[in-house]
């Protein structure tokens, strides 16, 4: 490796290299791209969630909200599910 390379690397140790920035930005943008491909994606996720949860408790299907929320540099799946009652079997 050329001396200049070593020196420049030595002095720029603190800053993240631009390839890492590229990789992280891509990761973020792709999670978003892949998730927001279509409203059907969210709908089918909703249906599956309802199916699973209904085995354990009674929920208000109409009031169920499923969203992808963008934070500063992450994406969160946020579900708000109103519970109307518990099933005996699941409790016991």
């Amino acid at each position, binding site marked *: 490796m050329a001396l200049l*390379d070593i020196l420049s690397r030595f002095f720029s140790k603190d800053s993240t*290299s*631009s*390839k*890492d920035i*590229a*990789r992280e*930005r*891509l*990761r973020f*943008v*792709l999670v978003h*791209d*892949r998730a927001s*491909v279509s409203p059907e994606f969210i709908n089918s996720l909703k249906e599956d969630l309802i199916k699973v949860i209904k085995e354990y408790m009674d929920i208000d299907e109409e009031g169920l909200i499923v969203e992808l929320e963008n934070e500063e540099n992450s994406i969160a799946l946020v579900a708000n599910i109103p519970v109307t009652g518990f099933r005996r079997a699941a409790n016991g």
Partner: protein
Amino acid sequence: MKSRVLVITSGKGGVGKTTTTANLGTALAMMGKKVVLIDTDIGLRNLDVVMGLENRIVFDIVDALNGHCKLKQALIKDKRFDGLYLLPAAQTKEKTAITPHQMKNLTGQLRDDFDFIIVDCPAGIEQGFRNAIAGADDAVVVATPEVSSVRDADRIIGLLEASGLENCRLIVNRLRSKMVKRGDMMDIGDIIDILSIELLGVVPEDESIVVSTNRGEPAVLEKSSTAGGAYRRIARRIMGEEVPMYSGDEPENIVDKFKKILKLAK
């Protein structure tokens, strides 16, 4: 050998689809295969100039599909290889002049006479893209190591999978090994990691591509071209050979550098 229909696509423009189509087609023809290249970029045709065949065009793909001429009349024979043909796009029409159904029939007909049918896809995800992928068995996605290109490649891979084209492989084009070493360009590992797709090959950034495009002579014909060499290796990989991947240090490793210095000292 069973014939294969390969679509070369990328989503983003300017990443090297047409260059890749011309070079892989020529490289496969150099290996003695019968190859036809189809330009589906109607209205913005370019494969003809990259191949240096622009002054031979009489009929184009739209003429052939709409029955203005026979398919064989629209095929332009390459000036260098007997087994290589080009089906040019129309320049004065629009993408909607042909349909995915027609493309499927077209590639079906060509299967009888050719080992490889390579389809050069236009940029974008609209009708031109749907036409190009209609009859394909395999897809080759071309991406450069840039955020915008990789993002579009991801979108394209998703669309290819959704349309039932599961056999997608990636060519990383215009890789600059010096920038990768400096940490200023994503490396192959990063890209493969993000796209989770099989790597077909890596083509280094190479000025000889500009020269060969100027001349209308694909770079694979030039022995000394590094990009041409990379395309020749990809062609062998398409043929099923095991060929080591481009490592990034190829043109000048330390031993070569020393040899050069010694030579200069003499």
